[in-house]
């Protein structure tokens, strides 16, 4: 067991005028996850600490937060990989309103997600069985099927910090998943949404999103491919 000093940014809008740092010493294994250390605080030191988490195994994407200044999933990062001089700093995601402590208002994020029609658009008769697709056509968008909507990419993006109306990397990744699906027929509508002033052109190719994605999705590349599809009018 090792001692870890956790510095957690706290904010309760019902009580606090501005955010403050809560500091806690916990004993955890180096191979424990950052989430375990936060649980230690919540369960044994200060039950008022608020955070989201569900599966706690990197699948549901609900515990995205800033760990040592970078967007990460708390259930995805080990103590030994994050501890710096005996300390780990934890803050809520940037660019979204803090509801309490580590919980941010995800509604604007999901509104952007809904705006790109994240479902298969095809009104033709699928026939007696499912719509068939070649392995090559399936592979074309395989990478962007991995998104878990944790918002780590969108809230690491300077363009999103500056302008909340920007659809953001996650919505573009989700759009990419359908635009390049050979079974889908809604690409033109999605590209229209993404081609407007709050669409893909706000991306400045900073690569924060690619670096933040806990699923290793090539986010900036996907955004680049959508930009090309809009610029050339060709979906390849």
């Amino acid at each position: 067991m090792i001692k870890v000093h956790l510095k957690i940014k706290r904010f309760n809008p019902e009580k606090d005028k501005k955010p403050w740092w809560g500091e806690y010493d916990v004993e955890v294994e180096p191979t424990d996850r950052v989430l375990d250390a936060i649980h230690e605080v919540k369960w044994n030191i200060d039950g008022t600490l608020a955070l989201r988490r569900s599966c706690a195994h990197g699948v549901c994407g609900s515990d995205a937060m800033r760990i040592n200044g970078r967007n990460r999933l708390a259930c995805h990062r080990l103590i030994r990989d994050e501890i710096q001089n005996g300390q780990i700093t934890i803050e809520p995601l940037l660019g979204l309103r803090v509801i309490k402590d580590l919980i941010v208002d995800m509604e604007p994020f999901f509104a952007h997600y809904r705006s790109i029609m994240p479902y298969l658009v095809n009104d033709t008769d699928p026939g007696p069985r499912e719509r068939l697709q070649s392995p090559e056509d399936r592979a074309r968008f395989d990478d962007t099927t991995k998104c878990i909507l944790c918002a780590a990419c969108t809230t690491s993006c300077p363009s999103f910090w500056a302008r909340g109306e920007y659809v953001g990397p996650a919505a573009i990744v989700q759009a990419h998943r359908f635009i390049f699906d050979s079974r889908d027929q809604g690409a033109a509508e999605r590209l229209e949404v993404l081609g407007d002033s709050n669409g893909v052109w706000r991306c400045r190719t900073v690569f924060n999103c690619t670096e933040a994605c806990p699923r290793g999705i090539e986010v900036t590349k996907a955004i680049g491919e959508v930009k090309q599809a809009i610029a050339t009018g060709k979906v390849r």
Partner: protein
Amino acid sequence: MSALISTVRASLSYRGREGHWLWLLHRVSGLGVLLFLILHVAGMSSAFISIEIHDRLLEMYKTPLFSIGELALAFGLIFHAVNGTRIAILELKPELWQKQQLATRLAIIIVVLLAAPTIIIMALGSINAFFGPAAGH
């Protein structure tokens, strides 16, 4: 205004990798070059209003503060051009994204190779003008 402040604060507090810091420097250098253009156009235009004001401005441009500004301008221009080219290439060829760290290092090397001699020559010229035998004449 509060959106601008929160964005600047977020940009400085987020611990992004090289792409993040180059983006920040790209913005700062872009704004710096824009400031120069405004000063330049305003300075040149002043000749239409009054030759005296124009001459006074030209004298002001010869002060050490503006000489340091010129060095920053040279760096800003070179950095903005080279980094802009890096971004344009990555935008046009998204499949090259895995080479982005290499592209970043190359951009930094090119900036240093272009900016170092330029700044040294300019700085030597300024030092000579302020402290050399012809200083004050």
